[in-house]
């Protein structure tokens, strides 16, 4: 984890690439670290809000990692959590304001969950575990990696929930009307949060059965 070599490292060094892609699969914040579950349940009814949420979280993790990493040697240890929270909260408010100004309909759907990014454990976790001990660029990349790792799972869940729950993908109907005439019905259960949890469970199951090293003994 520690990355304290003094020689200049290229941006896409092996180590940085590992920081970026690790969270996509083997170190995924949702399925492996089981963080950020609550927002994954709440904003995944449709794909569009899920994508916007994923982008917002990626921006907030990346930039809070960057800022905290720049400040890491000046932050007094006794108030470091407060400093981290202030940085995260500021970024979240900015993101929320920007969404309200430019994608108003999505911001209405996300409602309180943008504000709740502040409490998303992934962000505070990355700040404490990575940004406080690493240089700005690796921290920034780590933030992007974790944001995307979170986003991938969100979009996968939203894909299945929107498809099975309302027969649509990104708001466009994909199930032909003839299916409905034959008696097919959208599954209303998929719209409710419990099915998101079950979908996450299925993703975790698939991931672990493909990758035996993840199974706890």
């Amino acid at each position, binding site marked *: 984890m520690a990355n304290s070599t003094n020689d200049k490292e290229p941006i896409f060094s092996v180590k940085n690439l590992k920081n970026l892609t690790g969270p996509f699969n083997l170190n995924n914040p949702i399925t492996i670290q089981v963080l950020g579950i609550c927002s994954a349940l709440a904003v995944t*009814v449709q794909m569009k809000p899920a994508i916007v949420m994923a982008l917002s979280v990626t921006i907030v993790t990346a930039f809070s990692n960057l800022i905290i990493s720049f400040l890491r040697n*000046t*932050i*007094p*240890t*006794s*108030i470091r959590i*407060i*400093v981290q929270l*202030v940085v995260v909260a*500021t970024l979240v*408010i*900015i993101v929320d*304001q*920007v969404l*309200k*100004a*430019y994608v*108003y*309909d999505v911001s209405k759907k996300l*409602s309180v969950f943008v504000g709740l990014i502040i409490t998303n454990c992934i962000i505070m976790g990355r700040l404490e575990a990575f940004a406080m001990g690493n240089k700005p660029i690796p921290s920034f990349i780590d933030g992007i990696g974790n944001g995307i790792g979170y986003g991938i799972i969100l979009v996968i869940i939203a894909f299945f929930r929107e498809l099975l729950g309302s027969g649509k993908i990104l708001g466009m109907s994909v199930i032909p009307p003839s299916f409905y005439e034959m008696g097919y019905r959208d599954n*209303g259960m998929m*719209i*409710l949060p419990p099915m998101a949890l079950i979908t996450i469970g299925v993703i975790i199951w698939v991931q672990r059965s493909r990758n035996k090293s993840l199974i706890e003994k």
Partner: protein
Amino acid sequence: MHSNKYIFIYSSVMVIVVAVALTVVAVQLKPAQENNIRIERMQNILAAANIPSTVKDAETLYKKYVTKDLVVNSKGDVNTAIKAFEVNLEIENKLPAEKRALSIFICTLDNGEKKYVVPIRGKGLWGPVWGYIAFKPDFNTITGSIFDHKGETPGLGAEINTSTFQAQFKGKQIFDETGNYVSVKTIKGGAQKDDLHGVDAISGGTLTSDGVNNMLHDGLSLYVEYFKKQTK
């Protein structure tokens, strides 16, 4: 370890920097945000009058079709001092009924047909619900309606903003044959086909449906005097 002085200075500087940054962002984005709310309101009014609009053309369509707006009070007198579009129901609903400003938006369609759109607002299960109801010039028959909510249960109460629920209101009447105000009610278990004053409630969304009932009843009752004056 850092000294107390360092910590105090550090946190003060941090707070000031953050406050300045947030103020700048909020001030910069405010016009765009307020514009979004305005356009949403225009779209709602147009939608109640069955005029489809998009975020882009809402303003032009609004100017074209909403030919007049006015504010009345619960006694039916017109108040010219207030602009109908600026009336905020969230604030008005806290005032006593006789002091509230009631806005009416009059849409004139291409064929000269007039529709009278009134806004209403009430409480659902988890938060506010609101809507716009369009009336025919007889001030009795509903020709269109739009409902929305802040945070009703998805799949249950939240169904009030679907077209299936809203379409039911078309053709319903708020006065009975003898001219008494009866409003329109959502009926649990489904309304009779010939019921002029009832629509199907949402299964599983009883509390939201009740909220819609109260909103319709209370909101429209304030307009009764004005409507009666117009039809005399």
